[in-house]
């Protein structure tokens, strides 16, 4: 009954917690690569919930879900590689 009145509420709350957690982590990062990695991982987790639950791809169109997850993962990995490259070249 609760779920019928508020469908997807659990996913919504989880994504909200992740969003707030990501911002809190980011304010503490100060260029720390581990914290940056955590922020990007949180962003990926948010995107994963949106793709699987909000876009209804958890139980169907597996290939499309994987492709969307790969798009997010590639960009976030590139974001993680940037500070690594900058610190290596500096």
């Amino acid at each position, binding site marked *: 009954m609760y779920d019928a009145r508020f*469908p*997807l509420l659990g996913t919504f709350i989880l994504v909200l917690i992740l*969003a707030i957690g990501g911002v809190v982590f*980011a304010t503490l990062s100060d260029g720390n690569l581990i914290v940056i990695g955590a922020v990007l991982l949180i962003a990926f987790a948010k995107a994963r919930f949106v793709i699987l639950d909000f876009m*209804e791809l958890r139980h169907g169109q597996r290939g499309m879900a994987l492709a969307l997850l790969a*798009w997010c993962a590639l960009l*976030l990995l*590139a974001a993680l590689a940037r*500070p690594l490259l900058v610190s290596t070249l500096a």
Partner: protein
Amino acid sequence: MQKEISGEALLQIADETVFDEDVLLLWILVWSELVAFGILLTAFLIMSGVYAEDFGLARIHLNPGLAAANTVVLITSGWQAAIAAQRRATPSKARVPLCLAAAFGLLFVLIKCIEYAGEFRYSFDATFSHFFQLYFLITGFHLLHVAFGSVVLLLVAWRLARDNILLITTLWHAIDLVWLVMFPIIYLV
């Protein structure tokens, strides 16, 4: 023995075929958006590596608090869009969540405009020009999608149809997805 197919069943098959073609077109549209934003964000990452110091200084003038608030607003909008998609079998039940999704989308536009008002003056500084050119291009392009998507959500809420609800909500989630990836890249790391 050959089975006879009624006229109604034929119409249903034809309807489903058209719907499948619509879904294919939808995914082509979604991926054209994702590729465009992917290229823009990659350009941003490359430029932030080349002009690391300038980008670091320019980023100080951004307002991550407002951007974080906008993340919450867009996630809430996405949640309402997902509810509308779940209720598409009975389109009349999707009207309220569609309107709420559009309202949160328009709130996103308002907050982003307030954010721009505080940042616009820094874009004329030569030191920050590389950063702000890309920043306004990427976030502005996304903002146009949110504004346009909000209007379409309202139109679909007005003229309810099962297929249209699925099409606009899927596109709306793609716009949401772009922001979720863009937000940490531009504001946080």
